[in-house]
């Protein structure tokens, strides 16, 4: 067992998404003992942004923030022998590794860091060949074959599992940088490596997957965005990100560093377990299938939740593929209406605007109106409980979507005129005219696992 510790292996969550708290990784590696730091950077749409950056400059296409983070934490990581797993490589993990190697040398640690690079997830250059060989990559939601939007595809990545990350760790990598590896795989891989778990030890694989699911959204497991008794959660300004403290038998505790804020409770961990859940009997990952209906939780101390009983099933023979394609354009405009009759005024403005769009014969796929302060989040459920006369202000928020840019662009010029030629008591337009935005949409599909070959290389810094 590498990184053996009397109380098990400790894996700390450093980033729940690209854009998460910049202080978290540093606090995780310095705030107490940890063996691994896990950082999740990739959302579905992120890959297309990175693909665009790479097409402009072949040395880009990864999460640049990760390199800045590594610069800050490397002295601690190297001194304490902490290992890092991150899917910050985006569509160019090798370039990301080179950038980390460069800062490693700049910091004077030349020869002291081995970086593992996991690739093989990027299918963009292989799509035509795959389609020609009968892989239709049908949209999991609509059933349409990918060829319908093939000419608009901007990125295509298979979700790799823990296996190549385990291989990189076995070969001596201290930092493992991947492309599209599942969020859960970044936590499961260190456990498989540290405890020598077999890839077909399904209950253990499921346990590591559940551990990964709990910490993959960072502080959402330690008091952030937690609804139950939210006002009693202490010191969120100083929130401690979650840490998995795992044992070889697949049981583990969720904890956080001493002296940090937030709260780790059964109720809070349960909230995170049900987050983005589908069928709880089949939580499917490339590594195996976890049964969330088997999970047992217990409060094992202050800010310590014990997880046990996790059962798993064999992996499927498919991998999920995340495809990003150009969909069209959208724009959202807003205006704020004040008491009295704030809601009525906003509703009148909406009617007037829609009439004008109709008179201009603009064609949209969708026009969507919300009255922020009245129905934007809970729709009619909220409106039915309101006394409209008492609402102090309402933001009219109206959005349009179309395949072409022209109608969306024209729409953006129809908001400001309402200030002088629509209902009264209107303000809040200092932001100026909204801008049409390109929509890059997500196309989930499955592919035969044998079509995807992960690859691992090592870079010595």
């Amino acid at each position, binding site marked *: 067992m590498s990184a053996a510790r009397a109380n098990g292996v400790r894996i700390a969550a450093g980033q729940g998404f690209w854009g998460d708290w910049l202080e978290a990784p540093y606090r995780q590696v310095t705030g107490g003992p940890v063996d691994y730091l896990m950082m999740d950077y990739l959302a579905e749409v992120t890959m297309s942004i990175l693909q665009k950056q790479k097409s402009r400059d072949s040395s880009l296409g990864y999460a640049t923030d990760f390199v800045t983070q590594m610069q800050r934490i490397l002295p601690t990581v190297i001194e304490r022998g902490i290992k890092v797993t991150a899917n910050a490589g985006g569509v160019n993990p090798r370039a990301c590794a080179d950038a980390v190697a460069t800062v490693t040398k700049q910091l004077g640690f030349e020869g002291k860091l081995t970086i593992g690079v996991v690739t093989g997830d990027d299918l963009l250059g292989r799509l035509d060949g795959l389609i020609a060989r009968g892989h239709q990559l049908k949209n999991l939601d609509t059933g349409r074959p990918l060829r319908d939007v093939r000419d608009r595809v901007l990125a295509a990545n298979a979700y790799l599992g823990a296996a190549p990350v385990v291989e990189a760790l076995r070969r001596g990598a201290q930092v493992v940088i991947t492309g599209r590896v599942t969020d859960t795989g970044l936590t499961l891989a260190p456990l498989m490596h540290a405890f020598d778990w077999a890839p077909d030890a399904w209950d253990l694989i499921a346990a590591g997957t559940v551990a990964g699911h709990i910490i993959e959204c960072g502080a959402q497991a330690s008091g952030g965005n937690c609804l139950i008794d939210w006002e009693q959660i202490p010191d969120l300004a100083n929130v401690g990100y979650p840490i998995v403290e795992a044992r070889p038998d697949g049981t583990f505790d969720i904890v956080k560093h001493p002296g940090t804020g937030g709260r780790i409770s059964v109720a809070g961990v349960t909230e995170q377990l049900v987050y983005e859940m589908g069928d709880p009997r089949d939580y499917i990952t490339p590594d195996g299938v976890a049964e969330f209906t088997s999970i047992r939780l217990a409060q094992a101390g202050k800010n310590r939740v014990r997880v046990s009983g996790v059962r798993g099933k064999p992996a499927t023979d498919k991998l999920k593929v995340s495809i990003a394609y150009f969909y069209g354009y959208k724009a959202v405009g807003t205006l704020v209406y004040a008491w009295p009759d704030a809601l009525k005024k906003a509703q009148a403005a909406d009617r007037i605007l829609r009439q004008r769009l109709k008179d201009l014969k603009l064609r949209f796929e969708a026009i969507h109106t919300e009255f922020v302060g009245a129905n934007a989040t809970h729709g009619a459920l909220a409106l039915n409980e309101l006394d409209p006369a008492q609402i102090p202000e309402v933001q009219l928020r109206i959005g*349009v979507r179309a395949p072409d840019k022209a109608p969306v662009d024209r729409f953006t010029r129809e908001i400001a005129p309402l200030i002088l030629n629509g209902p009264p008591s209107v303000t809040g337009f200092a932001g100026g005219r909204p801008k049409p935005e390109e929509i890059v949409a997500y196309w989930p599909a499955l592919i035969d696992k044998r079509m995807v070959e992960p690859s691992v290389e090592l870079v010595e810094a």
Partner: protein
Amino acid sequence: MKRRLLDLAHARSGDKGDTANVGLIARKPKDYPLLVKHVTAARVARHFKGMIKGPVERFELPNLHALNFLLHGALDGGGTISLKTDAQGKVFSTALLRMEIEVKR
């Protein structure tokens, strides 16, 4: 007696494409059977009438005293396509907690 779900349960929600999920968790384990009995898929579909376009699925997690609901067609296409403020279904959770159920004293 009418009880609001907010008093009996807490919740968290998220998205998968155009589907929002709501995990509904009993505040006290003893109240979980009440949720199972009253907060059916059909009842949730009625609650969200006009707000979602597709069907509602329900899954039971007795081990966590929780129910998981999938609300299909809830997010105006979801993700980047959606024009909704709540494009990722984050607050369908508390919208469900507005529901009232009839409970025997």
